[in-house]
């Protein structure tokens, strides 16, 4: 590398990291949200990996989900979250164009999508609880069908989907707060709430196939 290039690189480093500027070109709040998302992503990946670990070390794992109601419910829930992510993008776009009324409407749509997700998920939980699934025991019917399965199906199911549900709930409350106060927020605040919402959507993209689709096939059994 020539000395000229060295001097140029040095200039860039002092200009960006010498203080007085935002080296990432994002505000400190947005950077904080990104760092929180990274740490939260590690939490979720740890939980999903532990679930896979337990499943791989078991002789058998129940695959009880039939097309109706579980798979159709979870697929519709996925569609709800994806659509609400899109409406969130539209809200950020409207806010960038300083169109607050429209931003507020899109935010409301996003909250509706999240609410639909929550309602469907709670119905789904009630379904499996009625079936007899508990955190540390399987329904009698499943225990008969998969005799070598450990009783941890419920624990992994309730822990992972429960934590995700909690994230959706807090996300919906957060978005509601932003929606009500939109006149007093900066554009970046709307963007930050959007980052959180998209992250919740992103986590579901892994929870859905691993928890639901991998437990689909009703005839195969095995783990």
């Amino acid at each position, binding site marked *: 590398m020539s000395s000229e290039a060295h001097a140029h690189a040095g200039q860039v480093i002092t200009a960006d990291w010498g203080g007085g500027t935002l080296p990432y070109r994002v505000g400190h709040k947005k950077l904080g949200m990104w760092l929180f998302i990274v740490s939260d992503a590690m939490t979720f990946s740890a939980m999903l990996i532990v679930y896979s670990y337990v499943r791989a070390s078991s002789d058998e794992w129940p695959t009880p989900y039939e097309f109706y109601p579980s798979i159709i419910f979870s697929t519709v829930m996925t569609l709800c979250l*994806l659509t609400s992510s899109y409406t969130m993008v539209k809200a950020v776009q409207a806010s960038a164009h300083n169109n607050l009324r429209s931003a507020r409407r899109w935010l409301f749509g996003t909250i509706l999508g999240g609410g639909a997700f929550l309602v469907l998920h709670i119905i789904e939980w009630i379904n499996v609880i009625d079936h007899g699934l508990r955190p540390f025991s399987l329904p009698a019917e499943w225990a008969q069908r998969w005799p070598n399965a450990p009783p941890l199906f419920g624990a992994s199911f309730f822990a992972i989907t429960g934590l995700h549900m909690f994230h959706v709930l807090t996300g919906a409350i957060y978005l509601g707060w932003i929606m009500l106060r939109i006149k007093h927020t900066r554009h970046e605040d709307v963007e930050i709430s959007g980052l959180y919402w998209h992250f919740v959507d992103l986590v579901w993209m892994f929870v859905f196939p691993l928890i639901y689709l991998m437990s689909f096939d009703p005839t195969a059994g095995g783990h």
Partner: protein
Amino acid sequence: MSRVLSSARGLFGKQDVLLVFLCVLLAGVFLALAATNLSGGISGLLSIDGLFLTAVALTMALVFISIPAMYLRERGMLNNPFTLGEGVPAARTAEAADLHFEGTTKLFLSVLGALLFLTLIEVLLAYFKVSLLVMLTLLIGLSLIKAALIIAYFMHLRFERLSLVLTLIPILCICICLLFVFFPDSRRSHDLRAVQVKDAVEEAR
């Protein structure tokens, strides 16, 4: 080849050409190593040793190719895929109408369409009787594509500074990979249990 080299000489010094040439050569050697490892078939690749060798070979190839890539970028021959954001989107002001917001409605709609399409494929995949390993690989692969689409476009990272991307993404990938260190133990404890059951059956006889 010689024509390429002679045109390259106009841009680089003599020792630079040598360095770039050596780096490309070494990167090629490591890529070839990864390729020979792949030729052992899917079962050989998916073992711990196979994955380790492939990952190390690919990382070494990446390390060596990064030097020629940096040379090219310095001379403007390789465009930075991540555009540099100019300034922070500030408070809403009168001129906020021209606040920068990359991406159009059409772009976001097509991203949404792609996400829905991939979800549909995942659900359909559950219907086909494929082996568990193939199904898991396909599901995780599709989910990673979906995650990348969400991060890049919905979360806007595609339009942020490269320095932000490099601060956030590699560390996350490395930490998640490190979590997998324990994973081979799951198969081991499974196999151990099978041996114990077998011993118990023989003792009962």
